[in-house]
């Protein structure tokens, strides 16, 4: 019966000939693909299209939020009171921990030979963002959040939840942005094992409950339960943000490298409320890539690339360690040392800040 409907506009064969249009659209697609790969104005086209697509993004994410909102409305008084008590207990615990933390910070300052109070806070600003869409497949682990360029969010910005590192922004539209989770197969994070300071790289596996440390030798000193934090080496993430705990180690005597798995601390597949962070550049733990830093105007989507491309050609890889280690005696870097222009001493990391190359 449906086929009878075909009669409503049966065109002549000449009218339907879509060959010319097909060639036009196919070429257009190829041009788009070419420029999207090279990150030139492809990024700008995407920026505009993302603005157009924003209402659809919100619509797509709305069923999940509707369910959340409904279940929130249906909660009983008792369960709310219970949660309130639990939160208050947690608040007290956290306050105690903060006091302890402040003491440690002062001690750290003294050990570094700095005057008391001269070490600035690492995080200068944070913005609460809500996930409006999630794509958690084996190939892509991404979230779309409800804030973007208009709120000052920028590409490669670190995103955390209450427990640990979540990921970084890879695409920023006007009102929305895409977070690449640390569990994305394309993501890798420079990490450090807190117990002994071994630095390595954590790679996403496409599973939000497990990251891989693929570069540790079988003889490496790793134990189950070891806390893994960001090392700050990639320059994208600050140092010292919890990533997860080691939960599985496979040591095959025939292999050079062990298979070490880390369970992320952050609820990668369940967190809806996340924090996008800004850092104070003068804190030694802050990410050193200039586009990560607070003092610069929020980079528009194409900026990091244009700033980065010439710089990464100039500097050799040997520049990295010197730049990385802040000299304790020198105190905080003067803000003037961070030019907005391409710095000649800028380390040659991968030109793409998204995937730190090991």
């Amino acid at each position, binding site marked *: 019966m449906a*086929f009878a409907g075909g009669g409503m*506009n049966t065109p002549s064969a000449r*009218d339907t000939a*879509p060959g010319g249009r097909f060639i036009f*659209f196919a070429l*257009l697609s190829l041009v788009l693909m070419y420029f*999207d790969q090279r990150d030139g104005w492809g990024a700008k086209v995407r920026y505009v299209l993302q603005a157009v697509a924003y209402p*659809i993004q919100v619509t797509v994410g709305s069923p999940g939020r509707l369910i959340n909102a409904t279940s929130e409305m249906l909660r009983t008084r008792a369960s709310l009171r219970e949660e309130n008590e639990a939160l208050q207990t947690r608040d007290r615990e956290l306050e105690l921990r903060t006091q302890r933390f402040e003491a440690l910070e002062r001690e750290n300052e003294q050990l570094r030979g700095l005057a008391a109070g001269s070490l600035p806070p690492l995080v200068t600003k944070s913005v609460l963002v809500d996930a409006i869409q999630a794509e958690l497949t084996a190939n892509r682990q991404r979230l779309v959040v409800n804030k973007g360029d208009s709120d000052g969010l920028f590409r490669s910005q670190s995103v955390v939840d209450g427990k640990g590192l979540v990921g970084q922004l890879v695409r920023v539209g006007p009102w929305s942005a895409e977070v690449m989770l640390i569990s994305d197969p394309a993501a890798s994070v420079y990490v450090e094992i807190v117990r002994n300071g071994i630095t390595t790289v954590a790679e996403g596996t496409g599973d939000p409950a497990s990251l891989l440390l693929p570069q540790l030798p079988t003889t490496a000193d790793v134990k189950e339960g070891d806390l893994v934090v960001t090392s700050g080496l990639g320059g994208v993430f600050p140092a010292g943000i919890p990533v997860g705990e080691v939960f599985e180690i496979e040591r095959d005597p025939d292999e050079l490298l062990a298979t070490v798995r880390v369970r992320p601390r952050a609820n990668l597949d369940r967190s809806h409320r996340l924090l996008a962070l800004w850092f104070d550049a003068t804190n030694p733990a802050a990410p050193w890539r200039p586009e990560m830093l607070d003092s610069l105007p929020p980079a528009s989507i194409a900026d990091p690339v244009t700033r980065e491309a010439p710089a990464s050609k100039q500097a050799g890889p040997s520049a990295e360690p010197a730049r990385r280690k802040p000299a304790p005696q020198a105190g905080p870097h003067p803000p003037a040392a961070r030019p907005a222009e391409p710095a000649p001493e800028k380390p040659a990391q991968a030109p793409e800040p998204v995937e730190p190359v090991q």
Partner: protein
Amino acid sequence: MILSGTRESRLLVYITALIALVLTLVPMPQLLSLLWPNLLVLTVLYWSTMAPLTGGMLLGFVAGLALDVLGGSQLGQHAFALSLLTYLAIRLHLLTRAKPLFEQSMFVLIALLLYEFTLWAIDGFSGNRTGSWARWVHVPIGAMLWPVVVGILGRLHSPR
């Protein structure tokens, strides 16, 4: 008379495509998202076969671009694959739309295979991850769902 009918159904075509787009992208549990067919591709195939003048090549391209932007894939990837599919569907619409549903499903199976193959090839050429077998699961499911798509969309415009 005919013109006004065409204009109305153009709105219908784009509204159904929009709904299909939202339904395609709605986040869902892991297993279900594996089995979830690409409803937008099916809808575009339907309109390209049943009303090739109304949707036309533009519908295929725009739908593909929407998948690229909202799905976060390489810009132009889905647009290319879906343009190709739309072109073939329009070219062959006189052949396919007279066929019984079962045979149409076979055509859809081939079309979806071609679609996924194109995406897969572009992923490979551009150095992206080509993914596991999981990406192919939606192909037979989409083909099986074709009679349902015909049933629903056919009801929307056949009375006219």
